[in-house]
């Protein structure tokens, strides 16, 4: 960190609760678990850890891809930890989570691209805390639908894969291996092959230089692919080396996108600056009446 970036808006002001953040952090350290909250330096970490919520990031802290918006390290990943599924389930049990979000780094180095670890984690959670609803936020699995199918067969309540941005900006914002059409194909496949009771979700960031028309075109693509839930949040540039923030998007535009998205037919839309994929994610299931 060298210089403060563009002046931050007031809504990026959060309360820090050191005691509660420490408690959750210690539990995660004991179980050798990573969270996307910590690895991505999420602005909501104080609030979420303070209320005993965490989004687990499986398959290690290092990612094989180098997306220009993301703060997760791009390094050679470690071998798969086969004790991780049990540890995730134990942490969920200790934290008493009713809903959990499980995401991962991209693992282009593995033959299964990490799909089977998602399955093992889902199975471990079902075994230890069967009342917990599960949301997986997966990589694009290079668009390989048999791998998407393996995860769908484990029947998470929510299958989430993030588009991240509009079509034009995708090659500028994401790793060159992550294409708009791969991601759309993953979501379409998930919609067509998910078991009843599994909802399909995606998310985009604003402030990257997208236009209204481009956002609406992306919404149309997502509706056509059968996506149920959409999350829209503000991009916050992790460091001066990352993709340059173009705009702090005004709240009114988030509200406009919410209205338009609901009119287009999404079942649930979260649209607000601090919305992240996993932030208060159980609300969407409550909106469609799903509990376990």
């Amino acid at each position, binding site marked *: *960190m060298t210089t*403060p*970036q563009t002046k*931050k808006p007031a809504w*990026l*002001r*959060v*309360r*820090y*609760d*050191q005691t509660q953040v420490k408690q959750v*952090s210690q539990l995660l350290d004991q179980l050798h678990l990573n969270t996307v909250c*910590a*690895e991505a*330096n*999420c*602005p909501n*970490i*104080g609030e979420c850890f303070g209320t005993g919520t965490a989004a687990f990031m499986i398959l290690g802290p290092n990612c094989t891809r180098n997306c220009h918006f993301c*703060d997760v390290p791009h390094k050679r990943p470690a071998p798969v930890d086969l004790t991780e599924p049990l540890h995730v389930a134990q942490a969920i049990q200790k934290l008493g989570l009713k809903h959990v979000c499980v995401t991962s780094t991209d693992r282009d180095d593995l033959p299964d691209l990490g799909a089977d670890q998602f399955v093992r984690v889902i199975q471990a959670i079902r075994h230890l805390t069967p009342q917990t609803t599960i949301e997986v936020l997966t990589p694009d699995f290079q668009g390989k639908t048999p791998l998407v199918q393996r995860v769908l067969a484990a029947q998470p309540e929510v299958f989430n894969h993030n588009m991240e941005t509009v079509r034009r900006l995708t090659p500028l914002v994401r790793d060159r291996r992550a294409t708009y059409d791969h991601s759309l194909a993953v979501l379409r496949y998930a919609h067509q092959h998910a078991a009843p009771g599994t909802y399909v979700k995606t998310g985009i960031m604003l402030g990257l230089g997208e236009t209204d028309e481009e956002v609406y075109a992306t919404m149309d693509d997502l509706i056509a692919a059968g996506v149920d839930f959409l999350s829209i949040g503000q991009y*916050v*540039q*992790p*460091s001066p080396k990352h993709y340059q923030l173009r705009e702090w998007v005004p709240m009114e535009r988030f509200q406009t996108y919410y209205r338009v998205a609901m009119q287009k037919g999404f079942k649930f839309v979260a649209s607000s600056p601090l919305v992240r994929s996993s932030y208060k994610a159980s609300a969407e299931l409550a909106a469609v009446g799903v509990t376990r």
Partner: protein
Amino acid sequence: MPKLSPKSDQYFFGTWEKQVGEHIQKGEVLFEVESEKVISEVPSEVTGVVAEQRVDEGATVKAGEVVGVVTVQMIERR
């Protein structure tokens, strides 16, 4: 200065919400600090009086550094 971010130990000091000589309750915001992604309001861990402000607004501070002093007032039990 508490460690606000698991991945960073260095922050930009924002504003003092309480000035020297002012009384502060435990849990009230003492100062704001800016890290890469967020502005954090840091509450006082004790009830007392702000005795010293050792850093200026806009300064670079590290986790663990003493940025100020709050004097705890002893309550006499009779």
